[in-house]
């Protein structure tokens, strides 16, 4: 290997470089930081392992928060609408709220509304495989081509309002192995009898869980027919009751004005933005804040563990640091070496933890509600990267104050 030697002294030109003169012109702080870590591999690896485990824990908590949250509200979260309409005075409860089909025109007529659709929620179970337990699903009634119908990434969207067809969420497809063109057999209670319904799967959407169940989307009249009922009634299209409304606005930024306008012009409804709607889903906020607390405490433990390690380390190095300062190492050189050292082992720890988490999560079945989104992983990794330097802060301040006089055993 040939390296151009660059230094302030003599220009030696191109010289053959042997392995033992690595870092010939490398800056001092990274050199010192690396040497110390390298010659104390065991000790530093131990801390990296702790960071790796904390990383794994934080990422799993994150994944769980996402996964559980998604199970609860994924459908509302991904809804292609700016505003969600509920019946007035039901505390934004989607299952309690009732909006009759006849109100839809009233809603659409409000100025600034681009399009609107009503959505009905219920539940049913899908029969699949010979010996398998039926899969409980959220049965969601939507209007073809209106807000509320999810995009089918495979196959096509729904057509008409009473067709025997369905779009299944990704999770239904993954768990049952059913695909576009297959027959979907659903079971629901009608009065006192179990009824079976056979629909054709026309499309598959992305993950669209709701109420902790994967979803099956059907045209709203089909929904009315299939959904479980306490008693069998004569279906009457004129006053079909659905649960909530999804409204797409001409100007998506105009949320507050439009919410107010809708509430004024359409009687007995409450209009909220999508986030307010899904955060009002029972249990969602409580669950997320619990997981957040766990996450914050885990990070805090990380800060303390790293802080403790480096403080002990620094206390053991007082004489050595005094000596370095005495022979003329500047405080900034020593401080920078220290910070770099923390960054090295934090990077290593977070790297190992993230890789481990990835490997572990690949081995999980689909039914485990752990879910990684790029944003949440990024936030977690960045906050984990911060805990190292944060933990070392106290030691750093201590380090700066060590006097070179300690080298002569004289420091006050």
């Amino acid at each position: 290997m040939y390296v151009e030697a660059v230094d302030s002294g003599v220009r030696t030109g191109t010289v053959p470089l042997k392995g033992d003169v690595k870092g010939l012109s490398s800056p001092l702080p990274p050199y010192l930081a690396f040497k110390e870590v390298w010659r104390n591999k065991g000790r530093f690896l131990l801390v990296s392992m702790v960071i790796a485990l904390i990383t794994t824990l934080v990422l799993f908590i994150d994944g769980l928060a996402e996964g559980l949250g998604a199970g609860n509200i994924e459908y509302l979260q991904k809804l292609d609408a700016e505003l969600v309409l509920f019946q007035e005075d039901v505390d934004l409860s989607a299952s309690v709220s009732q909006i009759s089909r006849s109100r839809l025109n009233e809603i659409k007529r409000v100025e600034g509304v681009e399009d609107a659709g009503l959505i009905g929620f219920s539940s049913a179970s899908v029969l699949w495989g010979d010996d398998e337990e039926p899969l409980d699903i959220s049965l969601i009634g939507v209007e073809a081509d209106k807000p509320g119908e999810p995009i089918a990434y495979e196959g096509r969207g729904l057509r008409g309002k009473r067709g025997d067809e369905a779009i299944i969420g990704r999770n239904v497809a993954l768990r049952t192995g059913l695909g576009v063109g297959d027959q979907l057999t659903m079971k629901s209670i009608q009065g006192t009898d179990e009824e079976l319904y056979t629909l054709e799967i026309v499309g598959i959407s992305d993950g669209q869980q709701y109420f902790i169940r994967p979803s099956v989307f059907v045209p709203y009249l089909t929904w009315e027919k299939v959904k479980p009922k306490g008693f069998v009634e004569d279906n009457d299209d004129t006053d079909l009751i659905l649960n909530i409304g999804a409204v797409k606005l001409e100007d998506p930024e105009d949320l507050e004005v439009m919410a107010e306008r809708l509430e004024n012009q359409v009687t007995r409804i409450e209009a909220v933005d999508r986030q307010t709607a899904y955060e009002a889903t029972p249990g969602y906020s409580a669950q997320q804040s619990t997981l957040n607390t766990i996450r914050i405490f885990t990070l805090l433990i990380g800060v303390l563990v790293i802080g403790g390690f480096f403080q002990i380390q620094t206390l053991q190095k007082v004489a050595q640091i005094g000596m370095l300062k005495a022979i003329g190492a500047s405080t900034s050189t020593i401080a920078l070496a220290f910070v770099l050292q923390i960054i090295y082992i934090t990077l290593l720890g977070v790297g190992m933890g993230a890789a481990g988490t990835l490997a572990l999560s690949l081995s999980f079945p689909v039914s485990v509600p752990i879910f990684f989104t790029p944003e949440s992983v990024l936030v977690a990794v960045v906050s984990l990267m911060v805990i190292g330097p944060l933990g070392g802060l106290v030691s750093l301040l201590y380090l700066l104050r060590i006097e070179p006089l300690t080298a002569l055993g004289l420091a006050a």
Partner: protein
Amino acid sequence: MSAVLEAKSVIKTYEVESTTINAVDDVSLEICPGEFVALVGPSGSGKTTMLAMLAGLLEPTAGSIVIGGRELGDMSEAQRTKFRREKVGFTFQSNNLVPYLSVQENVELMLKLNQRFNRESQKQARDLLERLGLGERLKNLPSQLSGGQQQRVAIARALVHNPNIVLADEPTASLDTERAFQVVETFADLIHARNLAGIMVTHDLRMCQYVDKIVQMRDGKIARIINDTTQISQFANTHMLN
């Protein structure tokens, strides 16, 4: 020959519980290039405090210290750090070396601090270590060396960047007699060969046989200066018998 180090009427006082203690009391000293000086005296005589001030680690309460034509009192903290890095070589009683750097790396550290690390200076460092009998130990870590070997590595580090003055704090404290003599003799040889000014603080008066001047301190003051060769030998020999 003009002095490389001049200390004039240096005083260092400490306030302890409203009483003033004169750790160093009106000490004046001159050292020329090629001169190796022993600073001796009982514990608390102020010799280490004096050494700290000569190194720019401690500011005198009064008086002036000029090294290589520069007044230490006029320097800022950063300038003093730079001064120590460039003009001073150090060996300490203990914790001399960076534990995670090899023998060779410890010596090269001084060159790197001064941004003078290159192929040529690296070879000089290696030659110096070989001359100190550490040629086989270049890759060893300090923990794998004996106390005498560690002191010799420290000596190499103190000399490798060609400083003006070399300060040694109790270089023989942890060594047995034979090794102690070896270390100080080598040190003296190198100081003379390189025409440096060397100051050694020591308890061990037998070591004075290698120096050119003995400065004996008591209660912060200079009690006696011996610079006659015959007297120096006598002084060292007297203590040899004890």
